[in-house]
């Protein structure tokens, strides 16, 4: 029975795409067939982490939303490019990085229902165990839909006042939408903070489990989205934390 996992954050820059890419890879390393969809059409980014260049993009999510192709034709098997001998599979459905195409979607919008159909189509056509949705930040029609259809939701936040209120609203809405498994991931915690204290405080504030409290990592910053952290640093504490996040979300 396939599962849908959404990775969301209220604001941008929380580390959503990196978390999504790493969790995806760790699940594939366990032998699962994982699809990952970049629904952040305005600022596509996760394709970079999987090393998919613009020239190698056959079709993007944008093409599917404009009725140019079937959803599975947008899937790129990036497993081999990860060079990690994963026992599972990673299929990436990227959003277009072409300015004209981004502009077109922003101008014309798209049928959110079509996105939902696309998710189902992908799961069937590619025989996925897990579909990861890298959402657009914030609460809008598409993200609400993704949350509503998810079996598990990971909400990424930073320990910054700017993130607190919005995260609270998101947690509330996820509860109302009856998401079966709901976890917060606190990311980029400055070294002066005690991560365990931050975890405890956030759990208390939102009455929601924190799957991981990740300290700011110089290695992560230096890696700079050029690859998957968990593959490059398999024994790093942050990778261990990502594994816990993956387990909790996959259920």
């Amino acid at each position, binding site marked *: 029975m396939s599962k849908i996992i959404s990775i969301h954050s*209220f*604001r*941008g*820059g*929380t580390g959503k*795409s990196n978390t999504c890419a790493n969790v995806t890879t760790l699940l594939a390393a366990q032998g699962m067939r994982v699809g990952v969809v970049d629904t952040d059409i*305005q*600022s596509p*980014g996760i394709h*970079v*982490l999987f090393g998919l260049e*613009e020239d190698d993009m056959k079709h993007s999510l944008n093409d599917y939303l404009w009725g140019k192709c079937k959803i599975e034709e947008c899937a790129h098997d990036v497993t081999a490019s990860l060079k990690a001998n994963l026992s599972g599979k990673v299929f990436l459905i990227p959003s277009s*990085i072409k*300015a004209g195409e*981004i*502009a077109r979607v*922003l*101008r014309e919008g798209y049928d959110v229902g079509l996105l939902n159909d696309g998710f189902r189509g992908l799961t069937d056509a590619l025989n996925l165990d897990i579909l990861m949705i890298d959402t657009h*930040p*914030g*609460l809008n029609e598409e993200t609400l839909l993704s949350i509503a259809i998810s079996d598990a939701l990971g909400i990424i936040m*930073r*320990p*910054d*006042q*700017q993130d607190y209120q*919005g995260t609270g609203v998101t947690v509330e809405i996820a509860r109302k939408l009856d998401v079966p498994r709901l976890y917060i991931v606190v990311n*980029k915690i*400055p*070294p*002066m*903070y005690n991560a365990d204290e931050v975890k405890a405080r956030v759990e208390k504030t939102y009455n929601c489990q924190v799957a991981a409290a990740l300290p*700011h990592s*110089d290695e992560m*910053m*230096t890696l*700079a*989205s*050029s690859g998957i952290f968990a593959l490059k640093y398999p024994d790093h504490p942050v990778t261990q934390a990502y594994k816990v996040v993956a387990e909790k979300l996959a259920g």
Partner: protein
Amino acid sequence: MSKTISIHSFLRGVGKSHIAANVASLLALQGKRVAVLDTNIYAPTMNLLFGLGSLDVKDSLTDYLFGRCTLDSAAYDITLSLGTKPKGKLYVIPAEGHSGEGALLLRKGYTLAQLGEGAHQVIRALNLDVLLIDNGAGLNQETMMSIAIADSLGVVLRLDKKDYQGTSLVLEIAKELSVPRASLIVNQAPADYDLSDVKTKVIKAYHSDVAAVLPYSNELATLASDALFVVKYPQHSLTKLFKQVGERLM
């Protein structure tokens, strides 16, 4: 002659609002009459950074765009938050008050001309030297309007591969929109990098001016949005770099 500076980025969360707030504060401390316009209607940032509680804000950008007030009536004089007796003036125009109508506005849409008109009006009404616009991230109609009306554009990026392509796009579009000057602001460079080396590489890669390369700072990360960095750490090397950014954008 007043200047409109727009601070933009392709990606979210790269530190735009912090840079905008700190640069604006330093310009005010230097004697300029400055207003910061927060256009992040969806997720306002300046209220927190400048200590504006929800009860303090009656009119906001959202109210102006709904046609309820002029933009200058949504400007709050927060000069005193700069601590010492600054020579200039600092106003903040928050994106939203406590009405919570931001989301509604975004769904309804608003006339982009309103942004340009509001900018002109508030500059005149408050006799501003600088209007600093904290833009939303990414490329959409609203952010492009703000870029279009700028005399000077600061594009913030981190040294993250996700930023690269999009930042090139922004610079291209700035050129198409005939923005008189555009500079890159590299933020959160790993502390052990040679900053001048980074600057050289970025200038070469983008064929663009680089206002400054700001290193990742634990103090700033810890302070986060609780207070203004340049007010709390006036002698910090990062504060000097914020000053450099301001000078470059002017």
